[in-house]
């Protein structure tokens, strides 16, 4: 391992005692042999660790708790009412639509209703369908005429249908 890697380790895990026993032994063996890394470890401890050791700790003043108590009492979202407030907020969300979304939904609904009410536009396919149906009607009428002509004058004769043959 290079001195650079050892020094990275010194700055972090070594100084903070986070190294495994095996790695620590390996690093300490290197320190006995490398004056540069030894010097670096000493400077790092002195410059980056020792200044923060045994720092005086602040004690919270009685006024701080008084302020917090007061702030909690004035808080619009106290913990006890929190569940109720949450429920109300969730309920509102269920029925909440942002204004632009509501407007858009209204417009879409109106368009759908108009399309349903208005007659469908006549396209080429539609004309072809109408023509086809008309031709069928003409053929049907023609066949009826032929059927009438095939009957005899007293009305005997038939339509030539299978059902007629069945009953006759």
């Amino acid at each position: 391992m290079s001195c650079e890697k050892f020094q990275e380790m010194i700055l972090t895990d070594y100084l903070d005692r986070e190294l495994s026993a095996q790695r620590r032994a390996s690093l300490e063996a290197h320190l006995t042999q490398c004056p540069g890394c030894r010097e670096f470890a000493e400077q790092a401890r002195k410059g980056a660790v020792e200044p923060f050791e045994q720092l005086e700790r602040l004690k919270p003043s009685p006024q701080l708790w008084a302020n917090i108590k007061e702030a909690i009492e004035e808080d619009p979202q106290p913990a006890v009412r929190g569940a109720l407030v949450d429920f109300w907020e969730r309920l509102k969300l269920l029925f909440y639509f942002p204004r632009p979304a509501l407007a858009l939904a209204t417009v879409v609904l109106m368009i759908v209703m108009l399309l349903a009410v208005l007659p469908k536009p006549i396209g080429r396919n539609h004309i072809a369908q109408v023509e086809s149906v008309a031709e069928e009607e003409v053929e049907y009428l023609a066949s009826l005429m032929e059927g009438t002509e095939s009957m005899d004058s007293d009305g005997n004769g038939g339509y030539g249908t299978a059902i007629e043959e069945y009953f006759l």
Partner: protein
Amino acid sequence: MDISNDIVKRAAAGDPDAFEEIYKASAGYVLNVAYRVLGAREDAEEVTQDVFLIIHRKLKDFRFDAAFKTWVYRITVNVSINYAKKSNKARNRTVEFKEELAVCEQANQTREADQELHEKVVAGLLGVLNPDQRACLVLRSVEKLSYQEIAETLDININTVRTRIKRAREALLAVRKEVMNNVL
């Protein structure tokens, strides 16, 4: 210092005595972390007040997945970092701090004899760092949290903790080197 789950549940249900218990057990480290991240007692007290208001509001959401102390540290660090980033107060008072550091390095005094100067140097050293590095270093060097605990508190990878601490210490050593070169 440990806060039982029972106290947390009682406080979440609105018991003011239980919440006061939580305050008494946590206010010290909340105030000190905020103080070291922000560098001024009045800012730290303001942040402490905000932290306990947040704790009070969010207690009902605490699911006991993490240790309560870790959760409180996380809120404290987040509020402190946000405060530091938003604050217009220039924490980076490098020039005057370097003079104090030089005096500290030269003086052969006990820390008790010159606690005030030492506090200024510590505040100056932390002021060199960005808020994320500062929070990591404070949790490690002042609060003595392990890398794993810091990772859980800040919700970051343990290697990110290593990287932040490494860069923070490199920055501190660079400043010290500069000061020492000027002194000698």
